[in-house]
């Protein structure tokens, strides 16, 4: 695992994440006084402690976990496909994962603890397994992208079919709301369900780092580099699928973060696909914790959806960064 060395960048980003995280736990709809903050640290049964540690903290951790998973998966996809437009959804894993969750919600099983998460994860794993087999056998990224587009269309159509055949408008609204992406009302048990696949995905993705760097020179050079490319390519896809599945299971479908996070750090790591991984994960976490904080605190009649906020605020920023980085996209 050769991820390069960027201790200052990683330290700086970790500091920023800690700061955003502190804000996310400290600020919210219910204003707290200094005495109440103090009480939250010394008396776990107090109301302020409940708000901070059992409502805001799991929500912030969920946002950070989803953001880092999407940021890392995006960086892996862009490196694997040598394509700056790739994101975690490009291979169709988000779509199949969303279909799994939508089906369970429409069947009225959403109240069963962990059912939606497991269904989303299941959808991601089925797609991930198919893509991993394909990635190990195919060397052309275009074929993988085309297969991903097909899988994405299939997942989207299947989800639309769920809407189409759903007997209850309540269930339909619930599916739609879930598809817009949110970490509202997530508790520690929700976080726990997604942690295992997310951590596994992160370890697998980081293991494939050197292969991503080698792929910058093309498939044929990589094939003769001495690295076990079929295995590493498969691992990168499997890892990204696990990360995407974990993110969708915890927060629904959230776009943009996986596409933007790698671009926000690429200039600081000399464009190196391997060195992009860890900073992308941290930037993804910062983006999503900040976006969730905004979603919670921006005054509106109803809480804004996380996926909506990330796109609304992130897209202009991303356009600006992309404009600056455009010269490095030349072939």
């Amino acid at each position, binding site marked *: 695992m*050769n991820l*390069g*060395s960027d201790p200052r960048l990683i330290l700086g980003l970790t500091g920023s994440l800690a700061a955003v995280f502190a804000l996310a736990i400290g600020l919210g709809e219910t204003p707290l006084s200094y005495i109440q903050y103090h009480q939250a640290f010394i008396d776990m049964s107090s109301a302020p402690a409940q708000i901070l540690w059992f409502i805001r903290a799991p929500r912030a951790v969920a946002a950070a976990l989803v953001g880092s998973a999407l940021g890392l998966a995006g960086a892996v996809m862009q490196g694997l496909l*040598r394509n700056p437009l790739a994101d975690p959804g490009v291979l169709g894993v988000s779509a199949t994962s969303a279909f799994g969750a939508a089906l369970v919600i429409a069947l009225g099983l959403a109240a069963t603890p962990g059912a939606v998460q497991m269904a989303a994860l299941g959808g991601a794993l089925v797609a991930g397994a198919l893509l991993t087999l394909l990635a190990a056998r195919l060397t052309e990224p275009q074929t993988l992208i085309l297969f991903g587009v097909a899988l994405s269309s299939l997942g989207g159509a299947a989800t639309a079919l769920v809407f189409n055949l759903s007997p209850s408008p309540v269930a339909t609204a619930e599916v739609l709301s879930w598809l817009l992406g949110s970490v509202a009302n997530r508790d520690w048990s929700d976080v726990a369900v997604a942690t295992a696949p997310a951590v596994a995905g992160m370890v697998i993705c980081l293991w494939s780092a*050197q292969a991503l*760097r*080698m*792929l*910058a*020179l*093309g498939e*044929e*050079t990589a*094939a*003769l*580099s*001495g*690295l*076990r*490319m079929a295995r590493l390519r498969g691992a990168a896809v499997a890892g990204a699928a696990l990360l995407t599945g974990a993110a969708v299971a915890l927060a629904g479908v959230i776009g943009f973060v996986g596409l933007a996070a790698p671009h926000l750090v*690429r200039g600081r790591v*000399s*464009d*190196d*696909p391997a060195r992009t991984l860890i900073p992308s994960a941290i930037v993804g976490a910062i983006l999503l914790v900040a976006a969730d904080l905004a979603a919670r605190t921006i005054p509106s009649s109803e809480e804004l959806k996380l996926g909506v906020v990330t796109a609304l605020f992130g897209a202009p920023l991303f356009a600006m960064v992309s404009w600056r980085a455009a*010269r*490095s996209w*030349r*072939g």
Partner: protein
Amino acid sequence: MTEALTLAGASVTLGGHLALDGVSLTVRGGEVLGVLGANGGGKTTLLRAALGLARLTSGEARLGGCPVGSLSEFRRALLAAYLPQERRVGWNLPAWSVAALGLPHLPPAKARAKALSALAEVGLGALAERGVMDMSGGERARVLLARLITTGAPLLVADEPAAGLDPDAQLQVMELLRARAAKGSAVVVSLHDLTLAARGCDRLAVLAAGRLVALGPPEQALSPEILRQAFGLDGGLISTAFGSVIAAGRIAKESNPDNTGEVNDRREGLAR
């Protein structure tokens, strides 16, 4: 000395047609073998087959005396390194980082030291930190050559490394490959420029429609008969004060577009 590369009756079928037809040759350390032929003649297929990237339909390819199919990825990389025709680098990596990819198994500091040494060898020591997309085509070609050198493999295979470069950069690339051969490496290089091949290679393998039609020193492999058969050119190798050059004119082909077939002997007078 063990042959760095051996092809014995190697044939490859691509899309239902024979792209390489029973080619046999060997390459030893210290020599530069040029692979020539018209577009679609089988040059790249020969290189890919030799390295195990194209599946042989018959015959055998050996690297360092071992059948290429029996080698692990790691062992194959120890025996041969490849510079493919495609020179696109996916990201704007610094030159040293690209050159260091020749040794992906080494610790980063050691790989960087070797990469810097290879960049100095190709005359780009001062540009080690520059992004490859911010370089000229010639500089980028030399960076990729530095990666090839960094591998330290006894067989270096380069597919059209001089394509698209200005005359000075072309000569530079050939000189760098010759320098590696002088240090004991076996070099196999496919080229389109016949004069460059005649000057820079010890032996030439000339392909026409996948078949090896000549294998030998330039004056033998670029005889008027071979030029006519493989390239549809009327001409030959001429010695000048600056080295050998090819002087040839195109022969118009009215009835049969196949280079190996009968040609109409009407000269168009195009000098190369």
